[in-house]
């Protein structure tokens, strides 16, 4: 059974059609069960639903592409992209090879809109930030890591 209702799917398709005109790559780092086997310490209860949700999101536009990687089987790749836990979603537009944005956990509630807006921003390849902010950030001399804790409601 789909996670997106017919109404939501149609709204998403319309929004993507309007605002996503260039390719966007979504990468999901997940844990895949091999033959139904779940190893202790490697449980990821929200991974299957996250994959299903992103599959439905990607299906809403020909420009949105989903790649699914296994956190353990593709451990080197995950480390290279700064992925520390699962499920983790990263995204980048066609002019970039990697992302500096990571979503940890299943997108739910308002977080769905955050993700959709970020997919659109990645497609456009532009920042919604003000000019003065962008100017200041461009001159940063040290790395900055922002971790925003949220809940689904």
């Amino acid at each position, binding site marked *: 059974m789909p996670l997106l209702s017919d109404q939501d799917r149609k709204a998403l398709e319309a929004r993507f059609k309007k605002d996503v005109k260039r390719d966007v790559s979504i990468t999901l780092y997940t844990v895949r069960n091999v033959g139904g086997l779940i190893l202790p310490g490697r449980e990821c209860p*929200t991974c299957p639903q996250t994959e299903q949700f992103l599959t439905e999101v990607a299906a809403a536009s020909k420009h949105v592409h989903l790649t699914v990687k296994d956190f353990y089987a593709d451990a080197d790749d995950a480390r290279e992209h*700064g992925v520390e*836990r699962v499920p983790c979603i990263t*995204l*980048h*537009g066609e*002019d*970039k*090879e*990697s*992302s*500096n*944005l*990571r*979503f*940890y*956990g*299943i997108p*739910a509630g308002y*977080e769905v809109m*955050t993700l959709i807006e970020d997919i659109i*921003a*990645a497609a456009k*390849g*532009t*920042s*919604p*930030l*003000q*000019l*003065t*902010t*962008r*100017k*200041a*950030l*461009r*001159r*940063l*001399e*040290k*790395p*900055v*890591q*922002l*971790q*925003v*804790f*949220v*809940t*689904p409601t």
Partner: protein
Amino acid sequence: MVQAEVVEAQEFPHLSQAHQVRAVPKTIINGVSEVLGAVNERALLQKVLSVVGQEDLLEEKGKPSGGDADSGPTSIFGR
């Protein structure tokens, strides 16, 4: 230079506890400094600049910036 992470607090209780997350949204900058609640862009920028010790970047606003002409929107994705 900027890496951003959105963390679903309930799904990662150990990480949330480590940063004493009792209300959301809560933003942790470089693992040390925290911002509670939703703040505007300038307030967040000020906090970020103070964490890295570059508050002067905001004060320089309006001064000639020596060839640092703006070249339009910058992608927030990718390095």
